[in-house]
């Protein structure tokens, strides 16, 4: 039995230790905001925060999250940085199909939590683990800059 705190709520998970967090949360708990894209830490679609650290949940076993705090896209709007990132994403019209965007928002939030005013190079470095097949990269950059400015104003 694994007990994890997901977006502030405690859940008991009766699953094998090695089940990736992604599947435990999507299939067993039924929160499907986090997406599956590759299963091998290549695409970032499954990005969650584990104790505030961005992780690839497709490759993180449930056992690594036992007794810990997990934030998913469903909860990121409660974070002031996450909320500003979401707002910027809508303003700039980043999303095309949107499938990668939950992961992008989770990574971008983690970036701004660490580097409040990233330059293009820092954005490219931090965000290069998140693939967008629709090719929204330029708007992602614009939106991150916008969120950073708004957060600075706050």
């Amino acid at each position, binding site marked *: 039995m694994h007990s994890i705190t997901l977006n502030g709520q405690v859940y008991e998970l009766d699953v094998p230790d090695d089940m990736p967090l992604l599947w435990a949360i999507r299939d067993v708990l039924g929160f499907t905001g986090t997406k599956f894209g590759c299963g091998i830490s290549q695409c970032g679609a499954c990005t969650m925060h584990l104790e505030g650290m961005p992780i690839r949940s497709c490759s993180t076993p449930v056992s690594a999250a036992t007794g810990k705090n997990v934030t998913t896209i469903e909860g990121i709007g409660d974070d002031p940085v996450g909320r500003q990132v979401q707002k910027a994403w809508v303003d700039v019209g980043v999303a095309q*199909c949107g499938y990668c965007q939950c992961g992008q928002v989770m990574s971008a939030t983690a970036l701004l939590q660490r580097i409040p005013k990233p330059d293009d190079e820092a954005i490219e470095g931090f965000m290069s683990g998140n693939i967008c097949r629709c090719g929204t*990269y330029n708007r992602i950059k614009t939106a991150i800059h916008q969120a950073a400015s708004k957060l600075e104003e706050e």
Partner: protein
Amino acid sequence: MKPSYRNFNLTNQTLDRRDFIKGVGATGALILAANWTWAQEEERKYGGEGMPGGTVEDPKVFVRINEDGTVAITCARSEMGQGIRTSLALVVADELEADWDLCRVEQAFGDQDLYGNQDTDGSRSMRHWFMPMRRCGAAARAILEQAAADQWKVAVSEVRASRHKVVHQKSGREIGYGELAESAAKTPVPSDEAIKLKSPEDFRYIGQEQTLNIDGMDMISGRATYGADLRFDDMHFAVVARPPVFGSVVESFDSSEALKVNGVVKVIEIEGKKAPSEFHPLGGIAVVATNTWAAIKGREALKIQWSASENDGYDSTTYRQAMEKAAQNPGKLIRNVGDVDQALAQAESKFSATYYMPHIAHAPMEPPAAIALFKDGFLEIWAPSQAPQVTRQRVAERVGLPLEKTRVNVTLLGGGFGRKSKPDFVIEAAELAQQFPGRAIQVQWTREDDIHHDYLHTVSAERLEAGFDAEGNATSWLHRSVAPTILGIFAPDQVHQAGFELGMGFNNAPFDIPNMRMENPGIPVHVRVGWFRSVSNIPRAFAVQSFISELADEAGEDHKEFYLKLLGKNRQIDPREMTDDWNHGENPKLYPVDTGRLRKVVDTATREAGWGKKLPKGRGMGLAAHYSFVTYVAAVLEVEVLDGGTLIIHNANMAVDCGPQINPDRIRSQMEGSCVMGIGLATTGEISFAGGKAQQSNFHDYQVPRIPLAPKKIAIHLVDPGKGVELGGVGEPGVPPVAPALCNAIFAATGKRIRELPIRDQLG
């Protein structure tokens, strides 16, 4: 058990008009496949009317006024990132004089008789549905005006709908749409003459600069519903082991170890179909479990004996040699103007080159996935489908249910790019669901499944030869195109390309050259080849636009001037004169190939890019232009190649003439995405085969662009199409010019000519 489901945020149409449905319609894709020989001119229909099911503009099908004042607009095209749920709804809302904030979008299920054609492909949604949706919105507005006039007992000519209410100016009375909902529902649809379209200067949403996305917030908060996102009580999850080589089948299998995996419920064989396998599943062994992880683990524990296949020998190296050899020799004659042989024999100078482009995989971020529930003899499906009506028809046929016992709901698509026009993955879910009555079954493809079992973009060798007279004028053009055809999934022994493949930048090359010949030498098909965003336009643009750059370089002329000279005087060419009877399905009289519009996008893109300006050492600019999906696009890329071969793309300027621009922001976003996708297929896109098996499996070896490879700046320039021009496509025409513009820029920067994609380590 009463299944309840959660997470379904995409409101589906609930209107059920099955009672009124005419006979069971036939099928999108087969008709499409049969279309390479067109019907006689007099019976030929074009545009939306030429599609199976045609168009529908009945406001009672697409619009519902709710008593709370909201307006529900139905979208019958699939959302896959192009923004169509927003853009079509904006068109209806504008004509309806509705306030966007009070509009909701409902997603149609697959039903061609009710909604008309639903094939979300071919860059056709706005092109074919702009006018029907305008008329639909205008008719709904007329209904509301009539309802208000009836209520006030005044002439309808005295009332006017404006901004979500109807106003009677004389008396100063006004009434909101919500209050009219009930009476409007009983008001008949007005006659055609009573429907008045708004005048374009009164548009509030159509053609306006606005950044809107009806699903925008849902998409970034985890609320949006994609193919794998519904959750039912006690649902099961399945993955399928499919044949490693196309055409191979299960000879025997042992499921005993798989069944021991914690969570695995059942192992079931799915039948494949011998080629041509159309949209049928590949067949294989499904592992059904209580969660996806258990299903994946179970599949790893399967022992399967696969049969030999006639495609075991498919090998990309030898196949390429065969294609290039075929391109050296005459093939099926497609277009012939003047006498190319004689002109080449007399030419002062000649030049030839062959360009190769491998298979590529769509790899939408969302791998194929679908959910099916078979309950009380009724099969309901939720799937990210580009063609829900075709899916419904194929599913019904395959599981042996009448059409009216099936329903295909459309979720959001996490990218489609043509992959999700083919319902093989949905049929898998349907078949499994039949074995678990009352229980929802989700089929999940892993990324490896997706890469190994895609309906791949074709592989191609394009050979070009041109001859020039003493003054440097082009006198001859010989183009041979060799590529396995999409027809291979529909019919046996197909070696030549279909009209819809030829008409993608091959026979319809609009150059002013007196002697031209196009040939299509045959080559057999060994895999499932399908439509990939922009289809055959990609290798054609790569070959033709690279070749022209090479010719300009040979002649010592500026590439842009040289290209415009080849285009010749501004003229409108009937595509049929170039043997292109297909013309992207559009009426050749309304949609001639217009070299003036092509010239204009070239002028715009080069001007905006600062074509000809001096660049720092190691940098170069490259141009390419292409006409496809009845839209004109030119791209200029500015690149830098560092020592060691690292590529930096500094600027991309793309000029687009897609006719009237309905939702400019989404046109730009499609072009930005096309630019990145074009860069990806040019730099790293390749699926290769050895021993009949795809050699790549996931994003580590099938690489797609990441953020550092995107151009540092992308500027999209929307060109004024001028008056009287019809709508063009948007989703696809941006892709083709990108790869050649990139390769031409690399040549300008380094002197290195790329004739083979992907570029990968050719710069190192």
